[in-house]
């Protein structure tokens, strides 16, 4: 690196290029404590808990401890998270309510004694306000509900402000009432309240999902009570894009059939048939079509409808068997989750595509269970961790190569000649600057420009002065960085090995569960197939008998 024709800009470029080969001077100014906590908060929200922990460093403010606890929880340092939360859940802490709520969540997650969980949630209720208080009250109501203390749960919900948490609480309470009561009146009242409460939620997407659930439940309960008009009223307002749509259409048809309006009922079932058979209500809708024609007196068309259902179920069984074989061969994660992602590449070209793909439909249906979500999440987390580590391994290989190259350059003394030419160029430039400054008009733009050039030259001079010192330190610092990079590379390789073994075990658990689920679905379709065959046999028998009677009459 030799700079021959010296000019101010070239000096700066040369100097920068020379110094860029030297390692960083350590211990430079870092963001202040408050900014570090702010940076940690954003990192946590962006899904980077390890980076959040880096930013938090040894900050000990309440906000820092709360964020640290959340980050520690996410990276699996459960015990540390518990300790960090304990440090925040003290008298006078501004984040006490959040800490108690997090402690309550940990307590529930750990399956601790009810009294311990109760204590944490009650403390959260006592010290919180606003949305946090609503969340704490909801948790308290849930604790009472799961302990079968429904009256107590109802009293807590009655104290809550309208919104998402209150609506969710009433929906859960309604589920309990519908489970234990013969008469669905109490459950319907709870659902009415839930619907009124969700109206106050500002998050429209969340409110729309919950409303669909509330209306479906209310519709089913009204139908069971033979209140068909009410049921139709609830069910007809459910969005066709929602996950509940096929089931809602099936019950809508049932309610219409209850009013002897088979024609309209069959229209609803016909719409439900458009969805994959994996969704609740679709198999019943196929069977309903045959029943609808049968009840309307069109026996021939009823037979055809049952036959159509029969062939649809038969083909679904073939699809399920193929899917089971695929899951057995390549694992559930590849066959369901990854494949579903690939199919969704052109999502912008089709609406409701995710709802109409049979494979995605079975995945969604499987994912309804909490255990299934845990099993899929476990594998997904490990896959993403492995991809991040692979990326790091590649980066480290590049750093190591670059550090070796720079170390060799510094050891060979590259840059010393460049420094000398830069140093020699400063004095003539300073002289020219002095001359120009003397002739520049006062208070003009020229003076300002010359001042900037002067500052640049001053910087250059200062840096040329320290260059030799930095250059002397460089090989040692490069060697140190190189050692750290090589150690990190080896650690990444070790961790990827452990990860690969854990991923294999997690995928085995998921695959076994998915195969069991798919076999269950196969049985469900087989049962529906039996029903269509019985109905067809019954219809043919009926038609044969009618034909015989007609023949006898003639």
């Amino acid at each position, binding site marked *: 690196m030799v700079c021959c024709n010296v000019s101010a800009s070239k000096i700066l470029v040369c100097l*920068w290029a020379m110094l*860029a080969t030297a390692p960083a001077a350590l211990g430079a100014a870092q963001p202040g404590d408050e900014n570090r906590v702010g940076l940690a908060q954003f990192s946590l929200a962006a899904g980077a808990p390890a980076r959040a922990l880096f930013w938090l460093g040894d900050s000990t403010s309440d906000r820092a401890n709360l964020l640290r606890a959340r980050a520690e929880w996410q*990276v699996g340092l459960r015990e540390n998270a518990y300790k960090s939360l304990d440090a925040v859940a003290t008298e006078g802490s501004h984040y006490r309510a959040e800490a108690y709520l997090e402690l309550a969540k940990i307590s529930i997650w750990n399956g601790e004694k009810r009294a311990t969980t109760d204590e944490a949630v009650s403390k959260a209720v006592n010290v919180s306000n606003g949305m946090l208080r609503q969340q704490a009250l909801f948790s308290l109501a849930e604790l009472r509900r799961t302990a079968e203390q429904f009256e107590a749960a109802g009293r807590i919900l009655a104290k809550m402000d309208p919104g998402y948490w209150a609506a969710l609480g009433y929906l859960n309470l309604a589920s309990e009432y519908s489970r234990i009561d013969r008469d669905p009146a109490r459950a319907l009242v709870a659902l009415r309240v839930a619907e009124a409460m969700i109206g106050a939620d500002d998050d429209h997407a969340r409110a729309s999902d919950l409303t669909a659930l509330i209306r479906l439940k209310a519709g089913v309960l009204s139908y069971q009570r033979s209140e068909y008009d009410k049921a139709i009223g609830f069910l007809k307002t459910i969005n066709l894009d929602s996950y509940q749509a096929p089931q809602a259409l099936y019950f809508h048809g049932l309610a219409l059939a209850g009013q002897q309006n088979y024609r309209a009922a069959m229209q609803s079932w016909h719409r439900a048939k458009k969805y994959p058979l994996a969704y609740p209500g679709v198999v019943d809708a196929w069977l309903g079509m045959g029943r609808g024609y049968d009840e309307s007196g069109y026996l021939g068309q009823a037979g055809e409808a049952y036959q159509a259902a029969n062939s649809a179920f038969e083909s679904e069984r073939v699809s399920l068997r193929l899917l089971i074989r695929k899951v057995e061969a390549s694992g559930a994660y590849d066959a369901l989750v990854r494949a579903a992602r690939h199919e969704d590449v052109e999502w912008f070209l089709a609406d409701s595509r995710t709802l109409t793909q049979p494979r995605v439909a079975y995945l969604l249906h499987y994912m309804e269970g909490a255990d299934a979500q845990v*099993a899929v999440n476990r594998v997904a987390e490990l896959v993403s961790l492995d991809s991040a580590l692979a990326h790091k391994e590649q980066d480290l290989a590049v*750093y190591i190569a670059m550090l070796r190259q720079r170390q060799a350059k510094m050891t060979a003394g590259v840059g010393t000649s460049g420094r000398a030419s830069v140093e020699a160029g400063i004095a003539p430039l300073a002289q020219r600057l002095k001359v120009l400054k003397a002739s520049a008009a006062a208070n003009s733009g020229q003076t300002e420009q010359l001042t900037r050039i002067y500052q640049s030259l001053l910087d250059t001079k200062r840096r040329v002065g320290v260059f030799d010192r930095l250059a002397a330190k460089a090989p040692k610092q490069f060697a140190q960085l190189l050692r750290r990079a090589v150690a990190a590379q080896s650690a990444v390789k070790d961790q990827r090995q452990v990860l690969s073994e854990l991923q294999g075990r997690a995928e085995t658990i998921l695959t076994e569960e998915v195969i069991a689920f798919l076999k269950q679905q196969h049985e469900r379709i087989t049962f529906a197939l039996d029903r269509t065959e019985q109905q067809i046999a019954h219809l043919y028998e009926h038609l044969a008998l009618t034909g015989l009677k007609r023949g006898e009459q003639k």
Partner: protein
Amino acid sequence: MSDLSHLFRFWLVKSALILLLSSCSGSLWAESLDQEIDTLKADVAALNQTLFELEEEVLHPTDTQVAVYLSMADPEALVLESVELAINGLPAIFYLYTDPERQALEQGGVQRLYVGNLPFGEHQLNATLNGQAANDHYVRREAEFTIRKSQGKKQVQLVLTAPAPEFQPELSLKEWQ
């Protein structure tokens, strides 16, 4: 017949026991796997911290480092959708926000929008914000700043405000000392 029913009952109890044992061992297996995953995650997090420090030192040497941060002084200023940053006319970053990220900024979070290396001297920063203002209108705000890179780390913070009386979103530049 009684022998048969006895056999059937024995078979039922045996099957139930096998089922119970297999479900217990399955869940225990998953539980121990979860514990091992937690340990691995903690190790990976620790390694990530080391790597982050190393990257800071290797990739962004202090003397050439320039970092641009973003924060919101007024959470009501704007529902932030995206930010574009250009340095000396060249696009440096385009960032699209998720809901949790937006909420974090509104609650006092700070985003490290850009970190890179720049030579000494003056540089132009052009920041463009897109989002929804308090009156529900979609707005696009552009701001240009000049920063001067000299010896040591250069750290600047873009602060989003909405000063009275118009409460229109505005960007200002703050330098970290």
